[in-house]
Structures are given as C-alpha cells and as structure tokens.
C-alpha cells in the first residue's frame, strides 16, 4: 500500500489530461462513428499556437497570469476552429463513405499536421521550451509533492468536463447531439441541422484539446511536433476503457488509465506500465465490451 497510494495521487494528475482529450475523442465518435486519429494533433497544434502567442505578446515568467488566461482561451478557440476546418474539408465530403476510409483519412490528417508543423521554420524539429514556468509551491499528499498548479489543472479539467457533460445532457443543443449520435437520418427528419451539430461537436472537442495542450505545456515545459501522437493514443484508450461515445465514461476512463499507468510503474517499473494498463483494458472489454460506462448495445427485435 506504501507504493500504491502515492502512485494513485500521481496518476490522478496524468489522468486529468487523458480525460480532457478523451472527451473530445468520445464526442466525435458519438456523432460520426469516427475514430479521429488527428485529435492528438489538434492538441499538438494548439500547443504550438499558444507557444507562438506567448512569445509574440511577450508573456514571460510567472507574473502575468491575466494575459496567460487570455492566451489560453484564445488557444481553445483556435483548437476548436482547427477541428471544425478539418471536419469541413476532410470528413464532411466523406460522410457517406465506409468507416475504414474515414479512419484512413484521419490518419492522413494526422500526418499532414505533424509534418506541416515540422516544416514550419519557427516551429520545426527542435523541442521547444515553453515560455511560461509555473511556480513549484505546493504541499505533500501521501508522499507525493502536489504543486498548487497541478491541483489547478486537475480542477480546470474537472470543470471543463463537467461543463461539457452539462451541455450534452441538460441543454437542447445536447439533446440534438445525442439524437444525431443515436440515429442521424431520423434526427434530420426531425429538423435537426446535422452539419451544424457536427461542427459544434468538433469545435468543443478541439477546444478541449486546446485547453489540455496549454495546461500540459505549462506543466511539462516542453513541446514537440510529435507530442500529440502519444497523448492521442492514450486518450483513445481512455475513451474506449470508459465507454466510447459517453462523456462521463471518457473522463472516468482518463483518470483510471492515468492511475493504472502510475500504479503499474510503481509496482513493476516504467517499462511495464503500458502493458499493465492495456492488460486491464483488455480484461475490462472482455467482461464489458462497451467499456465501463458504455451503453449496452441493444437487441433489435
């Protein structure tokens, strides 16, 4: 227990990121039945955009939190717009195509974004240091040092996830989203504008990825053009673990995956962490194929 308790605390923080990005993945899958592999790269591009914005507007050090907040919000908007643009240009014309074709297109977008960033001279191949450094002050919890910044990040993630959950489950817009994900044709017949709803879903997903990107860059202090690939993969796993298509499931899956990886590292060493986490995933899917909080696939009579 000595080893596990601190790892759980460490894993909570990691899980906050995964959860935020996983919610975006889940929502897009919900409305389009598409695994958007480019989602991790929306995260990456948002990180670079925030990096450039911070450099341009001269925000340095830890003093200027007001400006940083504005840059963060701006990055969320940029992330959302990027997602909407990709949907409009790549996915919309392919809406009636086979799911496999859509997935390949998503992979293509991912490669385009990664190599695009690689070839832009001011961004390029070097790992960039993030201009803003958060203060280290914090407190001890169960043998782990938790900085106030980390708590803030976990808090912001929970608030954003809660906001999305509220939109999806308590507003008319959310009802429309759920209708589109349940049966697109019938929703169209009911007068719901499919195109608009899908664009809004992509915007929300992209904005969440943008928020996660700013927070990750702030904490880890380093961005690279490949940072989205690994995070995207883990977020996808988290979404599947929690039940894909389900906002709450994605958040739960994210935290669970973070904790599993941290505990796996503590028990077996970092080289076994992913194996441990994915074994739990496989076991979970074996017992509950739609994920922990996934809706049971109904029987058509």
């Amino acid at each position, binding site marked *: 227990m000595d080893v596990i308790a601190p790892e759980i605390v460490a894993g909570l923080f990691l899980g906050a990121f995964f959860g935020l990005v996983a919610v975006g993945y889940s929502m897009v899958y919900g409305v389009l039945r598409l695994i958007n592999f480019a989602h991790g790269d929306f995260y990456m591009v948002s990180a670079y955009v925030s990096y450039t914005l911070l450099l341009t507007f001269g925000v340095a050090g830890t003093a200027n939190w007001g400006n940083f907040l504005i840059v963060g919000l701006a990055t969320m908007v940029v992330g959302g717009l990027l997602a909407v643009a990709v949907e409009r*240009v790549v996915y919309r014309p392919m809406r009636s195509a086979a799911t496999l074709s859509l997935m390949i297109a998503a992979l293509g977008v991912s490669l385009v974004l990664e190599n695009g960033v690689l070839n832009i*001279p001011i961004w390029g191949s070097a790992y960039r240091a993030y201009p803003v450094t958060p203060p*280290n002050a914090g407190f001890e919890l169960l043998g782990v040092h938790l900085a106030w910044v980390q708590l803030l990040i976990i808090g912001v993630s929970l608030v954003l996830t809660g906001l999305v959950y509220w939109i999806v489950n308590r507003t008319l817009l959310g009802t429309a989203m759920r209708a589109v994900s349940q049966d697109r044709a019938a929703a169209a017949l009911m007068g719901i504008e499919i195109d608009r709803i899908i664009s809004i879903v992509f915007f929300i997903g992209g904005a969440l990825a943008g928020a996660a990107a700013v927070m990750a860059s702030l904490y880890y*202090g380093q961005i690279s053009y490949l940072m989205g690939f690994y995070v995207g993969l883990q977020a996808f796993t988290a979404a599947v673990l929690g039940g894909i298509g389900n906002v709450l499931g994605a958040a739960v899956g994210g935290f669970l995956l973070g904790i599993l990886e*941290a505990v796996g590292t503590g028990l077996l060493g*970092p080289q076994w962490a992913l194996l441990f986490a994915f074994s739990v995933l496989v076991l979970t899917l074996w017992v509950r194929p739609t994920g922990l909080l996934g809706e049971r696939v109904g029987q058509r009579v």
Partner: protein
Amino acid sequence: MQTRRMATWASVLVPIVALVSACSSTPAASQGTAAPTTAPTAGTYLVGVPIPQTGSEAQSGTTIFNGIKLATDQINAAGGVLGQKIVLSAQDDACDPQTSTNAANKLVSLGVQAVVGAYCSSAALPAIPIYERAGIPNLQPSANSTKLTAVGAKNLFLLDPTGNFQADLAAKFFVNVLKATKVLIANDQSTYSVDVAKLAGDAITAAGGTVLPIQAVPNTAQDFSAVITTIRSSGADAIYWTGYYAQAALFVRQLRGAGLTIPFVTADGSVDPTFITNAGAGNAEGAYGTIATTTQFLTGSDAAKFVADYKAAFSADPGPYSAYGYDAMMALVGAAKAANSLDPAKVITALHSLKIDGLTGSVSFAADGSRQGAKFVVLKVVNGAYQMAPTQP
C-alpha cells in the same frame, strides 16, 4: 456539387502546397542544407551522411552535419582530396532503426564511396551490415554503444569512445566523488541508453556502490511522477539518466518540482544546451553530465579556430559532437591521402593504421574500430552553462 467540392479542395490544397514548398526551399541557416543526392560523377568523392533530420534528435543531427560540412568545405577549398571534390549526400535516419536501414540502402544505391554519420547507436546498428556488404568505410562521429563493435564489422570506425569508458568514469564519479550509496539508473530503452545503463550499473557495483533496479522509461513518456515516487520510496541518493536531452529536461524539471535535490547525472546523450533551457527556471543547475571531451573544452588554437569558423559559417554555436563530425571527415581524408587512393578497401586499411591529431585528441582506432586517444570527463551545469566539474574522478 462537383465543382463546389473541387473548389473547396483547390482553395485548401493550393495554399498548403505553396506554403510547404516555399518553406522547404528556404532552409534556415541553422538547419544546415543537405546537398542534393547525386550519383558519383567523375572528379568527385561522394560521401554519404546519414543523420537525424526529423524526430527528437533532429537538432543533434544538424550540429553533427555542420561539423562534417565545415571540414568538407575547408578540404574542398584547399583542392579537395587527391584532386577530387567531396560531395556530401545527407539522408534522414530519424534516430530510428527502420528509417536508418532505408537510408543506408538508399545511400549504397547512390554509390557513395564512404559514410560519415549517424548520431544514435540505435540507428547505426542495423546499418552496419549494409555498409559492410558494400565494402565502404563507415565512420561514426557520435554513436558509441559497445553493441556496435560487437558486430565485428571490419569497416566500422567510431570517433566517440565506447560506452565502457563512460561507465567506468561514471562509477568512479558516483562512488568516489559524490559518495552516493544508492544510485538509481534510468534508461529510455534505446540501444545506446540500455548499453550505458547496464555497463554503468555493473561498474558502480564493482566499485562498491549499490545500484537499484534499472528503470526503463519509454522514450515517448512525458510524465515522470511515477518514477519519482519510486525514487522517493527507495531512498536513492543519486540519479544517472542515460537517455536523451528532451526527456532529461522533463525528468529534472519534475524531480526538482517534487522537492528532490539529489544529484542528477546524465550520460552523454543528454549533454546539450537544450537540456538546460528546456528544464526551465534553473532546474538544471548543478546537474552533471559524463561526456567525451566536447568542443568548448578542447584546448589548443585549433579548437578556438574551429569554434570561430563554425560560428562564421552557420551563425550558431557548435554542438557537443560537431568536433567529432569534423574529426571523422578529417580522419577519412587523412586515410585516403595515406593510402594515396579513394578505393574503399584501401581507405579502410589505411584507417586501421591511421594516427592523426584531431580536435578531440589523437585519433586512432583499435582493431575492433573503437576510438583510442580520447577521454571522458564530467561536466557540471553552473549558471546556466556547462563547465568542467570541479572535482574530476
């Protein structure tokens, strides 16, 4: 509908294509232009340069390429080698075994007469048999895993002293200078890193220290909090990181953020100014690094001239291995002159008996191709820059 779709595609693709081609046709000075890849024409000596141009080590690839290019330009300005101008052909190996194999095959098919390059041991390793079959000299400026020499290729020459020297130095440093009782060693699962980690672990144990189970961190990992928790609970009082600088920056930042002040030592793969900047806010201050003598600590007027020439040519400071790239090209040319021939087999024979004075010390090779005449030192980060550590083991 069709025309609208075409118009949307065109309006998006045309600017993207224009932007990408514009960007790639104006290489920034600090990125180092790769020479066009051509088949050998009469009157030129085609030398292949496999280096990482993409991926996490792209920055290091550029600094090594620039070192090689500086030597090449100086030799060509003095008339070339045996009357032939040297032409460089760079190929991306992305510090990845698969990409490196493709790059090696490509270079061989282009008919290169020698290879100077690769940065990472993991990329150099699978390419060794390819260059051996082609019978051309294979000079490595920085890759130094003992696994490379273990292959037994007769055409392999390493400019960077092999990992066992580094491990011995690290062991002496940890046990005698830092007086560490429990050392935690972490690698990033790459060939070079695993090699140094294992050798260092054995050396430290032999020198009387205790080594905790080696932690293998995936090289894409950003979060080290779980490893740091292990460090805390195990009571380690020193850390040896044998991976590369990007992760080293993340590691030390999170380590210091967690309030741990134990000494953080890196192997040569992490000794780079980027480690210091990316760790942020003085987190790298006081960190140590074991490395074969790097450019700024070279003594002698040749070294100062090299640094000045490099700055003039590339508007940037040389990287830790730029001088090794330079020495590698000089060694190749020296061997060709000694053999009085550009024939690959004769150059290989001449390389085995070569002894010249390079920037990094006396350059000569043991029978298995490993470097003799250079030594490892311990550096320390003081006031945001690397200096020689005050107490050398």
